């Protein structure tokens, strides 16, 4: 699979960022609720971007 297709995983994370805190986590009044969820979502976005853009390194400079 082309690396750029993995961007869909980022969009899936975005969708979960809307869904999970507004459904499963509405009653979790602690740091391990929405705070932790969105923090982990942010970290996974960084990891996915590292992976997706790996091919950029191979591109010729000019």
């Amino acid at each position, binding site marked *: 699979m082309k690396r*750029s297709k993995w961007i869909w995983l980022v969009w899936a994370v975005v969708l979960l960022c*809307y869904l999970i805190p507004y459904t499963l986590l509405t009653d*979790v009044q602690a*740091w391990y609720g929405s705070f932790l969820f*969105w923090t982990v979502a*942010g970290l996974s976005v960084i990891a996915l*971007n590292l992976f997706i853009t790996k091919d950029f*390194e*191979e*591109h010729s400079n000019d």
Partner: protein
Amino acid sequence: MTESLIWWSIAIYLLIAIGIAILSRQGKSESMSGYFLGNRQMNGFVSALSYSATTYSAFMMVGLAGLTYAGGVGALGFEIIYFAGVSLVAIFGPKFWAVGKKFNFVTPSEMLGHRYNSKQVAMAVSIASCVFLIPYAAVQLAGVGYLLQGTTNGAIPFTTGIMLATAIAIFFSYVAGIRSVMWTDSLQAIMMIVASTLVAFLVIQGLGGFAALFDTLATEHPQSLTVPGSGLFSFITFLGLTIPWFFFSLSNPQVSQRLFMPSSLRSMRQMLIGFLVFGFIYTLVSVLWGFSALAAFPSLESADLATPSLLASEFVPPVLGVIVMIGIMAAAVSTIDSIMLTLSSMLARDVYANVKPGASEKRQLLVGKIVIPVIALMALGFAELQLDLIAVLSVAASSGLVAMVPAIIGAFYWKRGTAAGALVSVLGTGAFVLFVYAIGNSFLGLPAGVWGIIVSSVLFVGVSLATQPCQSSADSFIAAIKEELSKKSLKPKESETELPPLLQSKVQ
């Protein structure tokens, strides 16, 4: 905070920043791409810091902390969705970069004008950007004015603060165009992240540590840890806030223009990843500021006071308080000077050069340089006047600029997109968003932020299907991307060959 400490700190900051601006000069830039794009030779590290400083305005430290104070953890979700939207750079960045190099584009609006083979599209995008971004810059300035006045107890009056910030922004732009802006941005970004992290650390320590902070929140303000929580972040409001910001990296020309600048795709990758790491830390720090303020000062009159209260508290030593204050001013300057440069390049390249065909690069550059202080003075004037309309335009900026998004996505992925579609979508959506704001930001129960992307998509697709596309410009545009991006560093010989005609015809 004594007055002399403040002025000495500003003087030291200016000395270092001016030194960096002057050192960033590299010969005389006489071309548009030299002045506005750093000759497309910017390295990844500086690009990352500058992208961060440009994106995160002064309001991050004040606004996001205040939003967290008022609405709780939903503020974090809002920023994380914006942050995830910057992943659009991983997909669109190389495409922007490739066509920029191939056709020597200086501005995103020039790119759209070329792709849709229409000067009107380029002009409309440029003017719409000015309508939304000059008020946005003005509100940044006003924010700095109030903050400096507030934190220094009037030692730096409102007018002095905004004039100082404007003068610095003009100076940074003039020394070496985008090069001096990007290098001073880098200084500002480093200052901001170090100082704000230190403040968060000290304040949380002062409140008994991370666990104690969240225990206090859980017992005294349990709703702040969930959405919709106290009600500020209802799902509809959350959608209205996040949708326009999700597209920020494409819709705002002062950041999308950055996609033309990296020296290589490797540098672009460093820019993207560097920004994401910076943005992640900065987001968490700002949200923790807001939570700390809520735990320490639960009954502030207004959420905007969360940051000033923290900085004035006993947890933060005065010197650090001054550094953060200058950091906030610097953050506003770094947003404003980038907006000024981008808008002036658009007015010179897409309005002036289209009205006066045949204008030389040198002439365009001269016009751009004349326009820079004009934009700055307009922002300054708006900031002084404090018109309600300006505040509305500024708030509408993120929703209004979403008008460009379908035309940008269509440029790369939909050959059937037409100039008329792009034009109607940009102008129609801009007007519609302003209308929704004028009637109280709710139309059929939905805010302008949600309507913007729906209306612009419907207009772009609908009008495009009813009109004829310019096939040749779409073909050459998309073929150029394929050609440029197929170059691999391991096979430099192949990179110089053209794509075979058969392959070109298959390029979508």
